[in-house]
Structure formats: C-alpha cells, structure tokens
C-alpha cells in the first residue's frame, strides 16, 4: 500500500484574471487582459469640441492617443469622484473610473439574463459572482463603437486641417 502523500493538493481551478473597479457604489469587473495600464487623471487633456457627451478628454501615452470615456456617463451614474483611468489594450480607448478595488480571478462568467434588453447588452460581456456578490463584467468594446471612434478621429482631423488653414492664411 502506498503511503498517503501529505502534500497532495486538490487540482487548482484556473480562473480568469479580472480587475475590479468602482464607480459610485457599483463595482464592475473587466478582464485584466483588456487593460494595458492604469493611470491617474493628471495627463488628461480636455477636448475643445465634444462630439459625444461621454468623451470629454484625451490622453497621450507612448505616442498613442486615447479617447477617455467617462464611465459615469456611459452607465448613467450621477457624477462621482473619478481618480483613475484604465487604458484599454485593444483600442485607443481609456475609461475614467472612481478607483481600482483589486485584482481577482473568476472561474466562470455567467451570461447576462435575456430580460436585460437595453444598452447593457452591449455594455456587459456577462456577470460574475465574486465573494457572493453579482458584478457586471464590462465589455471593453462596448465603450466606443467603431462608428463613434471613426467620428472622433474624423472630427479631430477636421480640427487639425482648420488650424493649419488658419495658420497658412495668417
């Protein structure tokens, strides 16, 4: 008979790393792989012409410009005290939030119930149960659509062209 091995452990269930962030009293999760960096608000610049209410700032990082989405406006939450910006890895989009709670792992993501028929279908990739609490897992592609991104890029291009024309005629 083989002796019992004391160090024999249960197989570890590998989860999916998420970052928990807060806006007001709500905690959201976002896949850690969707975030390339977390910044303070110090480097944000105001946009003179606002095309969308939720995008009022840009942020430059390593030669790349990010459109900063105000998560309060995105999710219809009354203004709160923002202190951090999450830079997304797959698109030139950053998200202004109140703060970062922590990083954790989720074993599985539950689908958003079909009863939710509004914009939240696009906002959330699903739901996660963390420490007995149900939290929405945000869809990184749901902050700005391709159409909105194109409109922002075009509007900026027009502004640059107008400024150049004004400079040339001066």
């Amino acid at each position, binding site marked *: 008979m083989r002796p019992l091995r004391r160090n024999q452990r249960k197989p570890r269930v590998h989860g999916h790393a998420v970052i928990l962030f807060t806006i007001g009293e*709500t905690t959201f999760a976002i896949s850690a792989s969707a975030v390339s960096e977390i910044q303070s608000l110090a480097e944000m610049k105001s946009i003179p012409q606002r095309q969308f209410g939720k995008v009022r700032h840009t942020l430059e990082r390593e030669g790349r410009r990010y459109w900063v989405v105000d998560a309060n406006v995105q999710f219809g939450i009354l203004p709160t005290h923002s202190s951090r910006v999450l830079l997304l890895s797959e698109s030139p989009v950053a998200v202004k939030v109140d703060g970062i709670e922590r990083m954790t792992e989720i074993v599985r993501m*539950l689908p958003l*119930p079909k*009863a939710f028929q509004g*914009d*939240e279908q696009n*906002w959330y990739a699903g739901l996660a149960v963390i420490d007995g609490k*149900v*939290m*929405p897992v945000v869809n990184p592609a749901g902050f700005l659509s391709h159409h909105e991104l194109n409109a922002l890029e075009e509007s900026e291009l027009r502004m640059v062209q107008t400024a150049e024309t004004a400079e040339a005629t001066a």
Partner: protein
Amino acid sequence: MNETSQFVLFPLGRKRFALPAEQVTELARMDYVHDFPSNTRLVNGVLLRRGEVIPVYDVAQVLVGDDAPTRKFYLIAKRKFETVEERTAIPVSGDCELTSSVLLPPTGKLAVYVAGLLSLEKEIVEVIDLEKLTSEVTQ
C-alpha cells in the same frame, strides 16, 4: 369549450392578478437584490439563488402604478425569449394561491397584456401575459 386550467393568483396591494400555473416555478422570500446599471424598464437587478442569476422584474409599477405596495415575496416564473427559457422573479405583496378556473377571453377595454379573465367567487382577476407586458413597456 370551457376548459379549466390552473393559475397562480398573486396580490399587489388590494388587487390580485394571475399567471398560468405552468409558468410559475417557485415562491421565494425577499432576498438581496444585486443591482447594477441598466436601462431596461422594470428590471431592477438580479437575485442569486443557488448559483442561478434571476432577474427581478417589478411589474407592480405597470399593474398598480405609483401605489405599488411593499413587496414581501418573489413569484418566480418562466419567461421565453425566442428559443431560450429564463426564470424571472416578480415581487408580490403577499401570499399566492393556486386556483383552477376557466380562462375567459379579455374584453376590448383591457390592457393588451391581459391574456384573459378569471371569474372567481368574489373577484374578477386579470391573467397577465408577461411577454406582452414587456413589449408594452419597451414601446
């Protein structure tokens, strides 16, 4: 032909409404509602019951308006979304009752979400079609 079917009667304040019994799966005590931003009317959040996430669908706002009383229980009912069936928690204000009755066709003046009427001993009860109620409030 007047066929008798089973219905679950649920109170919302002084008035009672009904759902077909085959649609109802459970009556549950009030529980913590996990809420998060959404803009679907009447959906107030979700319950977490035995690992299942159940949306809370507060129909009282439509059925009895601003006079909606304090809700004490959840009537958990099935809803169909195309091919998918999902459970929904409907907050109700008191005990529910199972009854057998003939479903009478709705008359012209009733709301579109009234699937029919039950003529009980002391009251006429509206049978609610949850799908029609949903499409009514989202329009």
